[in-house]
């Protein structure tokens, strides 16, 4: 009964553990795995195909680039935080509605 009720939760936990294990094995077995973003890998591929250096691809519309990877991480965290706030707020709102409903 318990197993059936929490089937999805159990599958999720197993999947997350499997995902971590997969990452650990890849990172230890694959020499030279840099874990660069696929966007970056894609751009390098374009540069390689066209024989035009990556730096020569100039923005069509100029854009602000985060000055460092740390600042980029901070902004990504901000994005996740915005999402997390909304999700948490709504789940709390629904929970309250259910209790008072």
């Amino acid at each position, binding site marked *: 009964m318990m197993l059936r009720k929490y089937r999805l939760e159990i599958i999720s936990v197993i*999947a997350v553990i499997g995902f971590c294990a997969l990452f650990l094995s890849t990172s230890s077995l694959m020499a030279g795995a840099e874990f660069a973003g696929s966007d970056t890998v894609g751009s390098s591929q374009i540069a390689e195909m066209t024989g035009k250096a990556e730096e020569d691809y100039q*923005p069509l519309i100029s854009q602000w680039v985060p000055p460092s990877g740390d600042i980029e991480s901070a902004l990504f965290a901000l994005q996740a935080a915005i999402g997390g706030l909304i999700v948490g707020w709504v789940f709390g709102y629904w929970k309250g509605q259910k209790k008072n409903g």
Partner: protein
Amino acid sequence: MHVMEGFLPLQWAVFWWVVALPCLGYGVYQLKKVLEADREALPLLGVVGGFIFILSSLKLPSVTGSCSHPTGTGLSAVCFGPWITSVVCAIVLLFQSLFLAHGGLSTLGANLVSMGIVGPLIGWGIYRLLRNTKVNMYLTVFLAVALADIFTYVTTSLELALAYPAEVGGFVSSLVLFLGIFALTQVPLAVIEGIILTLVFKYIVALKPDILVRLNVFPEEKIRAAQSEA
């Protein structure tokens, strides 16, 4: 899935913008209609949109030795359809192009087509196909989410292959190359995203099944049955 700023020739950048804009416009119109009909749809939009914000901010490592973002769009496509999903994606992608230099303003059209339109459209299509069948509701959500994720990256590969056909082998060999970079990396991420968002859907069913019934996301019997089980 972001095509970086400057990496699409002008004509392609314009082309994808032209494809994206009408879809976005229709999404805004639909969104207005849904919210006017039922204000309680707004919190649900907050949850599914919130997860697009969260998941698309995470760069996860994959078996190919590179990293990529999940998209989070599938659940929104199931609840609200692909057009409203494209509106939420437009907000996320604008944020990322302005503050993170992930994708740019000229390539926003192309990125919107992949993440906000084609991906959700495929996920939504699978969901529509399975919605009224005997297939388990959670399995349906899982498939919709995972496929929306994968096809976002398939679309990015298509966009790049169209803009940069290989000298030998042309479009097809170029597509294979880009699929190897984008779609392959994405497979484990799509699976894990599918599972996580299915779990989220389970909690929505447990907490607020009424809104799913009112928006006619799944047949009422399916939702009630799942609710009594949870």
